[in-house]
């Protein structure tokens, strides 16, 4: 693990007093505490760094070791012992750790961040709710048209989940008691699932309404008639009024997306007609159009 300059982390000089350390820590903790920076991974990481620095520098003994041994301060005693065993032989500490493992260097600090509780949790008897877990579930728009069940594996545990129809992209649902274990006998945390919904259909969705464009032949637009259009759950027949204009919008009530947690309620489907003019006209067609043009 790379050397971390705790003084730099807290923005203080190596000569900083205990009061200055505490002041710097408080200031940075207020800035980066997970409770005031929800869903901000960068702030969370920064808060962990600040907490780690404070844990070391606010303890006089640890600070002394850190100042002397740098990144290997935790192994200071072993290092000293080894030096003594080697008698009078001259040894120069070059900061390489003398073969001591440093892989667990930061593990010491990890447990105290899980609940976003700062440095107060260690060794205390205060009960706290466990860490809230966050997960992202990727679904297709078609998946959320109907309520369905799905089994998710979160931290090695299978959770059978009912996904209500109409769930929105970016929506977060909370599942109580499926987060991390509580601290000192506190209740379990919650699981927050954020839905990321991809849309590969020809429909655009805004909340519970769906939007689609339908090509309409020019003759049908002028003379009127019937057409069949796709909705999200099948085809419907529509009557086209004579002299329908391009970009005309029609609303199909109740043919939109299901309303979240309101069984049997649906939004609307808005269809915009795009009138297609014929191409590759024959001479006869051109002649007839010219005749029509003269009539206007």
């Amino acid at each position, binding site marked *: 693990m790379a050397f971390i300059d705790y003084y730099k982390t807290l923005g203080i000089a190596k000569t900083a007093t205990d009061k200055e350390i505490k002041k710097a820590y408080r200031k940075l903790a207020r800035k980066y*505490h997970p409770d*005031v920076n*929800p869903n901000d991974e960068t702030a969370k990481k920064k808060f962990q760094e600040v907490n780690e620095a404070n844990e070391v520098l606010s303890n006089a003994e640890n600070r002394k070791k850190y100042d002397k041994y740098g990144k290997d301060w935790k192994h200071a005693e072993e290092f000293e012992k080894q030096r003594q065993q080697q008698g009078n032989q001259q040894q120069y500490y070059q900061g390489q750790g003398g073969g001591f493992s440093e892989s667990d260097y930061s593990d010491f600090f990890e447990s105290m961040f899980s609940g976003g509780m700062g440095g*107060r949790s260690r060794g205390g008897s*205060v009960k706290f*709710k466990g860490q809230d877990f966050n997960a992202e579930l990727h679904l297709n728009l078609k998946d959320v048209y109907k309520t369905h069940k799905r089994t998710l594996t979160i931290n090695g545990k299978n959770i059978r989940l009912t996904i209500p129809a109409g769930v929105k992209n970016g929506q977060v649902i909370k599942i109580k008691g499926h987060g991390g274990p509580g601290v000192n006998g*506190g209740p379990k945390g*919650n699981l927050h699932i954020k839905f990321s919904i991809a849309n590969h259909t020809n429909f655009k969705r*805004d*909340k519970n309404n769906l939007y689609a464009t339908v090509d309409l032949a020019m003759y049908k637009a002028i003379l009127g008639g019937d057409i069949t259009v796709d909705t999200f759950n099948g085809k419907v027949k529509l009557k086209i009024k004579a002299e329908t204009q391009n970009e005309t919008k029609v609303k199909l009530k109740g043919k939109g997306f299901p309303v979240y947690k309101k069984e049997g309620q649906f939004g609307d489907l808005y269809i915009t007609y795009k009138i297609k003019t014929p191409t590759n006209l024959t001479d006869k067609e051109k002649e007839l159009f010219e005749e029509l043009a003269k009539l206007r």
Partner: protein
Amino acid sequence: MENQEYIPIHQLCTTYQVEITFFNELNEVGLIEITTIAEKQCLHQDNISDVEKMIRMHLDLEVNIQGIDVVFNLLQKVDKLQEKLIATENRLRIYEND
């Protein structure tokens, strides 16, 4: 009203090791709503998560009750803005690839 959903304040004081005045002050500024059930002051269990946050802010960050009130109001604003942002992004999809 399910009484089991309400937790006595004195129990919360023991669990979180805070004074009862802390809860009374939170109640006074409107951050929590203390309900009296069978002559006991109680808090609904749905508020526990927020209360834990308030305790952490108070003890870890030395933020006073007024400060917690300000932070919570701002966090609520952030939440609303995030919801609006997601709704706007979803809406923008209607105009994408047109």
